[in-house]
């Protein structure tokens, strides 16, 4: 599969306790450190909610899967909630084969995820 190792990560606070992290481009072993750094900068407090918007994600390899799992564990440790939004149907299918549908809550859109975390 062709991918150009481009990844942009944008953090947008939506309220005092809700954050949206938009991940666009290719999430692979070259670009994963960028998402890791963004997650490290984020302080999650008990009761906070984080939506990771993956609607512009073009590619995700095994290291991308690892970092999303790590994000889930961090949120869990902090007593915060994590939701994934806008997952491409193929990727959603692969995630469900990996049994990750038992771990993450998936939502079609960021707004739907925010509403659920409200």
């Amino acid at each position, binding site marked *: 599969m062709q991918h150009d190792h481009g990844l942009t990560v944008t953090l947008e606070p939506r309220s005092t306790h809700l954050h949206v992290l938009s991940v666009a481009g290719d999430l692979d072993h070259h670009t994963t450190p960028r998402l890791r750094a963004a997650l490290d900068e984020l302080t999650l407090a008990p009761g906070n909610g984080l939506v990771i918007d993956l609607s512009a994600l073009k590619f995700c390899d095994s290291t991308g899967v690892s970092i999303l799992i790590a994000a889930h564990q961090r949120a869990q440790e902090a007593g915060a909630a994590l939701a994934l939004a806008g997952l491409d149907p193929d990727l959603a299918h692969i995630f469900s084969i*990996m049994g990750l549908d038992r771990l993450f809550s998936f939502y079609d859109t960021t707004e739907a995820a925010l509403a659920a975390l409200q």
Partner: protein
Amino acid sequence: MRREEHAGKEPDVNATDEARRLAAVRRYAVPDDPGDGALDRVASLAARIFHAPIATVTIIDDEWVRCHAGHGISARLCQTRRAVSLCASALAHDGAFVIPDASADPRVSADPMVAGEPGVRFYAAAPITTPDGHRLGSVNVMDTRPRQAGVEELDALRDLAALVMGELESRLATSRIVAAERRQRADAERLARILQRTLLPPALPQVPGLHAAAAYHPVSADEVGGDFYDLFPLDGNRWGFFLGDVCGKGADAAVLTSLIRYTLRAAAVYDPDPCTVLANLDAVLQQEHAGGVTPPPYCTAIFGVLEPGPDGFTVTLAGGGHPPALIVRANGTVEPLHPDGGQLIGILRDPHFAQVSTRLNAGDALLLYTDGLTEARTASGSMLDQEGLAAYLASTAPAGADDLLATVHELITTLGKGVSDDTAVLALSIPVRSTTVASREPCAA
């Protein structure tokens, strides 16, 4: 002291020296001339400096004077036997060598270029000398009238010979680099193949009442993939099998694959319950990573146990984040065998594993595969998926493990560039018992 250049006593050529010189000639005999005309330009420059009609670049082996470039003469014409060659006479001289009138010099008058066409009279040469002092041949200038050579002309001729040596050195270095790169590439591919073999069983064991076949379809020849499988005896008459895929590729993935293979076999000896085997593998992978900074390594796998029954086997398998196994029944229907909700192995806290059982009767076959197959893109650009694979198997109705593998091979070939990851396939089938009994000859009374 300046050496006498015009003539001179021929020094005795020591046989050992000549053997070393020939070794140097062979060393610099680069088979593929780059075709950039560098030596031809040297020859024409030499002719121009001397205002002479003919110039050549020659290398001398044990029998022949070989012409590598020629100006004013075809390279074929100036290729002569060393014994009679004008150019061979230059070999015995350290510096530039000049013969003002060859027809009057008994040492060289036998050369066909002197005796016949084009009737060479004047000859000047500078040796092409290796850094360790072996003279490989010379840059030669010839004229059809007798004459003298100027000091500056001879200096320029020596410089041209040094240029030729430099060119040969760089060709040798280039060919060595190319050869080294070829060797390294071949080594890397060989190592990858050896490593791949250690990760996969050399041959599947013979299981009574079962037909087993496996294949590995790599995407790249020199990159070790992380797919693995095995089939091995358990206690009593039970058999264990597994197939899986580790995250990543290359050396790290190979190390992880090896750890997983041995852990699965050891865990199965300890307690062959499929869920327990996967839970033990998960614990080992988590421990392996404890405290590590890199993302934790993980894998997906199916582990199963085969228990023989009256007309086949009972198969119980557990899955950890792996695409479902497919059963091709004797009647051609294809059904997934998928424990509900098995999760990735080695990376999650308290992962969930589940198992499922079914009967495999005569004519039934079980197919395990890695996601290189189901994540391949079809001509329409969509993922093949297990539905696509199941539909393909239903349409081709393979009978038995070998046929099943051949069908998958055909599918992978059809998908071509749509396949972007390695695929391992393990097929297990229950042969249909032959009903024809060989007729026996009646015993002679």
